[in-house]
């Protein structure tokens, strides 16, 4: 392992280190040679994953969430921004759950159940787009760094070290504060939240893919391809890169949970969609703040929704990480 530790850029001190070490450990997982039975790492992991209760629960939560995000607006009993029950809302009185309104209504007489259902789509959209932004930008930076390092040469190593220095600096800053500052500068909007959360996770993906690619580059099949005279570019693009993706996909699952929580936090800080009538879990939570004396339970519905979804992605992600771990592989 001494060789591999020499390949790592040193993070800026222990602050980034814990994050960085976690990322590096994940990066090495898929590079462990397959066991005697000769099954591929990914196939083997998938077999383990299907037997893991954590993965099943997480997967089930995510499946329900995705289905609701798609059909939510169609099965919602009321229009999410229609102030249908405004006549029942009086100062100090906001009706709670009833047969008509399962989760009650909010301060403007809107049906909370409908708003939660429609809001699922927003949360999914923000989480997925932000993760895709982080994934893509991180994959480009990490891929270039990993390839430059793998292709060797002084220049390649210099490119790698410049890119990684900058990424490691960003890695040391707290994701939420980075995202909040960025969203503030971009002007509050839904797009700003997606971009800010996405950019804040770029260094994680960059470091992970780079580490994973360097670990793959030391495998025998790369040596074999080189011996056969395959061009370096082709080795990187057709062999190393696709084989390096497994840990990145694990990280993407875990990032989705963080992205959804952070996006809600940004909406809560007033950095989300300025049109606060649009149902969105973070905004609903922020608006419930004002009703703490009248109907504080209004905050519980969106919060529980966020917690369940984040838990789903975290459970699946952790189960995937465990399935990839060679120490647990039998």
């Amino acid at each position: 392992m001494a060789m591999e530790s020499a390949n790592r850029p040193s993070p800026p001190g222990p602050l980034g280190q814990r994050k960085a070490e976690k990322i590096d450990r994940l990066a090495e997982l898929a590079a462990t040679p397959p066991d005697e039975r000769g099954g591929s790492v990914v196939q083997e992991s998938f077999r383990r994953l299907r037997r893991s209760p954590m993965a099943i629960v997480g997967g089930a939560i995510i499946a329900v969430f995705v289905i609701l995000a798609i059909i939510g607006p169609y099965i919602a009993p009321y229009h999410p921004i229609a102030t249908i029950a405004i006549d029942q809302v009086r100062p100090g009185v906001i009706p709670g759950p009833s047969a008509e309104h399962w989760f009650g209504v909010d301060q403007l007489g809107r049906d909370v159940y409908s708003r939660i259902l429609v809001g699922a789509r927003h949360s999914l959209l923000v989480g997925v787009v932000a993760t895709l932004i982080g994934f893509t930008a991180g994959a480009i930076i990490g891929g270039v760094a990993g390839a430059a390092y793998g292709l060797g040469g002084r220049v390649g190593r210099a490119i790698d070290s410049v890119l990684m220095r900058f990424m490691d600096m960003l890695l040391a800053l707290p994701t939420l504060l980075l995202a909040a500052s960025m969203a503030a500068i971009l002007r509050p909007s839904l797009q700003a939240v997606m971009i800010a959360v996405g950019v804040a996770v770029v260094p994680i993906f960059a470091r992970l893919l780079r580490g994973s690619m360097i670990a793959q580059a030391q495998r025998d099949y790369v040596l074999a391809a080189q011996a056969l005279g395959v061009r370096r570019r082709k080795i990187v693009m057709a062999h190393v890169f696709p084989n390096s993706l497994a840990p990145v996909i694990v990280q993407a699952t875990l990032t989705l949970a963080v992205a959804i929580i952070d996006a809600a936090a940004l909406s809560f800080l007033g950095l989300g969609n300025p049109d606060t009538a649009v149902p969105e879990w973070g905004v609903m939570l922020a608006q419930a703040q004002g009703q703490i004396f009248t109907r504080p339970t209004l905050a519980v519905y969106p919060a529980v929704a966020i917690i369940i979804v984040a838990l789903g992605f975290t459970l699946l992600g952790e189960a995937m990480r465990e399935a990839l771990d060679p120490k647990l592989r039998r």
Partner: protein
Amino acid sequence: MFRFIVRRLLQVIPTLLGLSVLLFVWLRALPGGPEAAALGPRPTPEALEAARARLGLDEPLWVQYGRYMRRLLNGDLGTSTVTNRPVLDEFLLRIPATIELAFAAMAIAIAVGIPVGYFAARRRGRLLDGLTLSGSMLGICTPVFFLAFLLKWVFGVNLGWFPVSGRQSSGMNATHITNFFVLDGILTGEWDAAWDAAIHLVLPAVAVASIPFAIIVRMTRASVLEVLGEDYVRTAEAKGLTTKVVRRRHVLRNALLPVVTVVGVLTGALLSGAVLTETVFTINGIGRYLYLAIQTQDYPVLMAFILIIALIFVIINMLVDISYSIIDPRVRVR
């Protein structure tokens, strides 16, 4: 040691410079701007022009940047476009509240987290262990601002045990020297003021402590489990030491090393948590200041906020590095 610190600080300069250029260009490239935000909706074109000239926004970008950097090097972070007061003064006024909150939260997280993690490890695979692990996962998935709201609702509004906003009761006529309200009360001997400030801290500190707590529990548990399997623990048991001595002298002491050093790592979680919690409890710290600056598009404040946070991180980084070598002599600062 001195050379190490100097080298570390020198390494930081290019990064901070890069960050400042990036932020500066980005801020100016966006439409609107502080002049529009300061004048409110629908300003006349003449007023807008005058405001731009007053703020120096009509000059070329590089001139503006040069001026900003020159002032920055003289310790001038600029002037808030909203209050017209120096940004540095505003920060110094508010940062004690945030530090106080962070310290209280850290104290709670450590005091509760380490014993819980330790007992979870000793009862590995039993009910307590399972509860601890699922609890810490739930804690990480719960948005801090919801937890803050929940605490405020249950213990503040419903039960009325704790105050729900601010740092001190408004009727309290306390003397402020350092702006750390609890410390001020102790220094001046105004015990009622100190107690009042401490009581105000309880709920926000618990909210901020949640994520560091979850991390400390997991770290302690993993670390204790690792040490329990070490040869020297078996040796200590074999040579007939009592369980109590083995646990205290061999297990706990070695297991806590990585936990102690993780404290610096948690600063990120603490600061993020503080930003959200200060907003819920209307505490006038830098988190709430950021929130207000976002609402008013106060560019100098936003810019200073990011630079200061980055600087704080670099300094904490360095302190943790140095403390490593003090706590564990095997790790020498190179």
